[in-house]
């Protein structure tokens, strides 16, 4: 090997080993613009996990440098280049000095069997302590339990303000989980179709939503803000587009939000655009989407005119497609409740922003008044959702297109939706 090539080889091996390590360090230092990052947790549980794993990352880093350093040192110290010896490139050399033929050393072997064993035993103690501690829910005056329901490809949140999950929920909302700051919020994670996984990286690890099962989980945030999440169990076609947001408000703001959410929507005044939009919505959308107070079983061919959110969810909490209407409906049987759509910052499984200037900065409670509606995206979504986000609407999974709607119809529907704040 020529001198230049040898230099190149050494340079590149050093680059590979130390470059990759340096990259990780840089990545940890520059963690500003990563809304899903696990490296800068703000939740109690997330911080506990980081406190456990960060020292282990350091131990692993030390082992990494020791082993890679040993490889390079052995390489450097004991290499023999082909041109240094004998007559052939690979073959034997009769006059070659052989290294001592060590076959092993039992003491050394036992030593390096025990050393990692002890190290791992220590790590396992801390792991188990954290593992069981993460199961605890800190007591607080907040009794609320949120049932989190995954389905293709969005999340629903059912708020049980009294903590009793066997009664109808007080609030049903979608995609954005709103919660007060500083309080452990117990979650009850479920699925209506396939396995999903609920994950707000800055708050806590993930928990699978498994159909037929109910999994306890808890999240908490020590700061207010909007924290992104992502479904992390592969759940079919639009898995990557199934996102969510945890919105953490001060306790006062949360109370305002909560009281607003409990109220049903108001019927638009007759003769307005919004009323025309309500009519279109009732015919085209209300077989799946509920708006408390203005859509009801009557819109779906039933008799009662009472708001019936809970009844619907009770009826098709199983996978029986179309069971409750006697007609084909979504496999999951449920679409997002839109009662307070305009109070959310995102739509379509949090894939699209509902407001153009949303981001993480505008005050959440002012969204409906202060934001600029992302009208073009919302209209495009109503008109042809499968084009805006992958869906299998023809297999009753995801929102079907409504290309029969005229531009006027869509304007009216958006006008109706704008009243849902």
């Amino acid at each position, binding site marked *: 090997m020529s001198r230049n090539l040898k230099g190149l080889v050494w340079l590149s091996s050093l680059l590979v080993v130390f470059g990759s390590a340096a990259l990780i360090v840089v990545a940890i230092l520059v963690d500003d613009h990563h809304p899903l990052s696990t490296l800068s947790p703000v939740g109690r549980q997330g911080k506990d996990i980081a406190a*456990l794993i960060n020292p282990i990352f350091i131990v692993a880093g030390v082992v990494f440098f020791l082993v890679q350093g040993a490889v390079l040192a*052995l390489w450097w110290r004991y290499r023999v280049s082909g041109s240094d010896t004998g007559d052939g490139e690979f073959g034997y050399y009769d006059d070659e000095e052989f290294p001592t033929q060590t*076959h092993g050393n039992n003491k050394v*072997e036992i030593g390096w069997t025990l050393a990692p064993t002890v190290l791992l035993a220590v790590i396992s103690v801390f792991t188990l302590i954290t593992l069981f501690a993460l199961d605890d829910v800190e007591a607080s005056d907040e009794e609320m339990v949120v049932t989190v329901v995954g389905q293709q490809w969005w999340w629903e949140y059912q708020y049980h303000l009294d903590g009793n999950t066997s009664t109808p929920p007080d609030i049903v909302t979608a995609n954005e989980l709103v919660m007060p700051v500083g309080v452990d919020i117990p979650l009850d994670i479920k699925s209506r179709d396939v396995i999903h996984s609920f994950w707000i990286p800055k708050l806590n690890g993930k928990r699978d939503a498994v159909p037929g099962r109910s999994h306890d989980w808890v999240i908490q945030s020590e700061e207010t803000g909007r924290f992104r999440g992502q479904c992390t169990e592969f759940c079919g076609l639009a898995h990557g587009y199934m996102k969510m947001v945890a919105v953490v408000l001060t306790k006062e703001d949360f109370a305002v939000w909560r009281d607003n959410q409990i109220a049903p929507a108001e019927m638009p005044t007759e003769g307005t655009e919004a009323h025309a939009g309500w009519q279109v919505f009732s015919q085209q959308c209300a077989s799946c989407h509920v708006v408390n107070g203005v859509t009801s079983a009557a819109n779906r061919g039933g008799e009662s005119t009472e708001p019936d959110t809970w009844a619907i969810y009770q009826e098709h909490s199983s996978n029986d497609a179309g069971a409750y209407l006697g007609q084909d409906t979504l496999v999951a049987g449920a679409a997002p409740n839109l009662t307070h759509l305009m109070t959310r910052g995102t739509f379509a499984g949090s894939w699209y922003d509902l407001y153009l200037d949303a981001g993480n900065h505008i005050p959440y409670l002012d969204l409906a008044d202060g934001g600029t509606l992302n009208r073009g995206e919302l209209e495009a979504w109503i008109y042809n959702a499968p084009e805006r986000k992958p869906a299998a609407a023809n297999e009753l999974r995801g929102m079907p297109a409504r290309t029969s709607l005229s531009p006027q119809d869509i304007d009216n529907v958006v006008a109706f939706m704008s009243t849902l704040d």
Partner: protein
Amino acid sequence: MSITQRTITDPATIGTEDKLALPAGPAVATRPLGVFSRPQGSEGWTSWLFTVDHKRIGIMYGAAALFFFLVGGAEALFIRLQLATPNGSVIGAGTYNGVFTIHGVTMVFLVIMPMAAAFANYLLPLQIGARDVAFPRLNAFSFWCFLGGGVLLTSSIFIGGWFQNVPDAGWFNYAPNSGVLFSPHKGVDFYAVGLQITGIASLVSAVNLIVTVLNMRAKGMSLFRMPVLTWMLLITQFLLLFALPVITVALFLLMFDRLWDANFFNVAAGADPLLWQHLFWIFGHPEVYILILPAFGIVSEIIPTFSRKPIFGYHFMVASGIAIGFMGWGVWAHHMFTSGMGPLSVAAFSVSTMFIAVPTGVKILNWLATMYRGRLRFTTPMLYAVGVVSMFTIGGLSGVTHSIAPSDTQQTDTYYIVAHFHYVIFGGALLGLFGGFYFWWPKVFGYMLNEAWGKASFWIMLIGFNFTFGPMHILGLQGMSRRIATYRADEGFAFWNMVATIGSFVIAVGVLMFLWNVFFSTRAWRRAGKPDVGPDPWDARGLEWMTASPTPEHNFDTDIEVERFDDFWHRKYGRNEQGRIVRAAKAEDIAHDGSNTNVHLPSPSYWPLVLGGGISLVGYGLIFNLWIAALGLVFLVGALYGWCLEPADDPDAVHSHGAGHDDDDHSDLHSKPVAAEASHAEPDPDPDSQNEAVSSG
């Protein structure tokens, strides 16, 4: 040729010799049905179709695995193109899901496993000094069955339109997303049926190789004189033997669910989807060790050879392999820390997973100790082997970090995991297997691969590999989920994804350079008039180097008697009066030159191919139309009958290869030692046993 009866030995003579031996006598040859003579000859392409020679089967395994590697690699490049930028639209979400699924399935089941099978088939009999595997026809069947399953799986890419019927529920294929309701096209059927077929192949092969190692070792080759590679392959076969039935059950249930509404995984009918997860990972985790242990074995052959030292801590190397083989069964649920198991289960699997790092660490340290104070020659195989030590360490360390169950709830199903298992499976298994290609290429084909191209392609591959999968650690910790078809621009994933995509194309360049090297080296060798590379070009240690290159069809001219570990090396080297190691003999003088033309070998057979083909036809039939399955069944049953009725030794057979064979003595199973070889052959106390025929399967 007349059919003669075997003569009965007078019982009085039994035991008068050193060992119990049946006297030599004419073969019992029958021709049931009077048709279907076994195919003959070892030349021409048809001889490859009907071969039962473990070496040819090994070569075919390797070639098929390389072909599937290119398919799986192309799929990987599409994945990287789709993810290169936010809001990627190169292939779209539906196709993307199919591509990453078939990429995983291809790389695990159709690349790493058969590549390891290539080495197992070719080397295992040679390393233990045997003529062939225990059941040569069964061995051929394993290959054809694997190929049939592989073709079936791969054909899902284009049958019914490109990516219309490709499996799209992930290689882990979690229920109920793999059910008909959520994956209505035929993709998951291909998965369920195809993997059952390749599973049959692996299972049969496992039994075959276990019997081979346990029963057919050369005289004196006790278990603890076997090379580390043989040990690792043996452990791998045991893992396969016990793991494959589990996945087969799971796939069987899945197939019944999808084809005949069996409701094993239907939640609406009361099923618990965690059943699939447990079944899959009880197979799936030992599978990880099935993928990596052969590469560990290969590294354990290469590093001593190029360090000019024996492997450090041989018994610990073997024991740690066995320990991994056992502990590998107690860690499966670490794939399920977030699936809703109770904290006690999580704690148990978390701890057991941590401690599996111990035997793995022992291996790493023993390799380093082997290099310590050695004379290290960095040939291409050595580069790959040291690459495994270095890269696998990274994968092992990230593995420890997600055995920490609480932190795994942050890491699982993110790109951190993708990074981890690519460091294990690419950085560990695949680099090791590539090192094996370079190391044993001269033994298999009779010429070396070019070293300059080999080293260049190694460095390109290694650098590309680190640029592809290194950044994925960062992406995963920054919160990028696995299996997402794209990501939003404001999530901050764009930069490292672009780096990874560029890296993946650098890997592709490295792989193309390997292929060019094969072409270039072959051409150079042909142009140079096919010079003989010699039996032992690397001055290596295993018995496989004690015969001519390429290996003669009958492997060894005479039976080998082994006296210690690394026996071949000890035949080459001794100590002088000063205790200094000196060469005692040249490899050329010790190694068998393949000149013995009188070795009785099993005849080729039509039936393994027909049986393997029949099984894949049944597979297609299950997916598309049961009438095709009926046709496949006809082939299958016909092949079974043909197999059973086939004469063990065709009386018309030319027993062996090559010219100079005396066709008149073909009934003489125990042919006499050939005088010409006596000069190089080890003196053998028992000439009668020299050319014993192997079973014909």
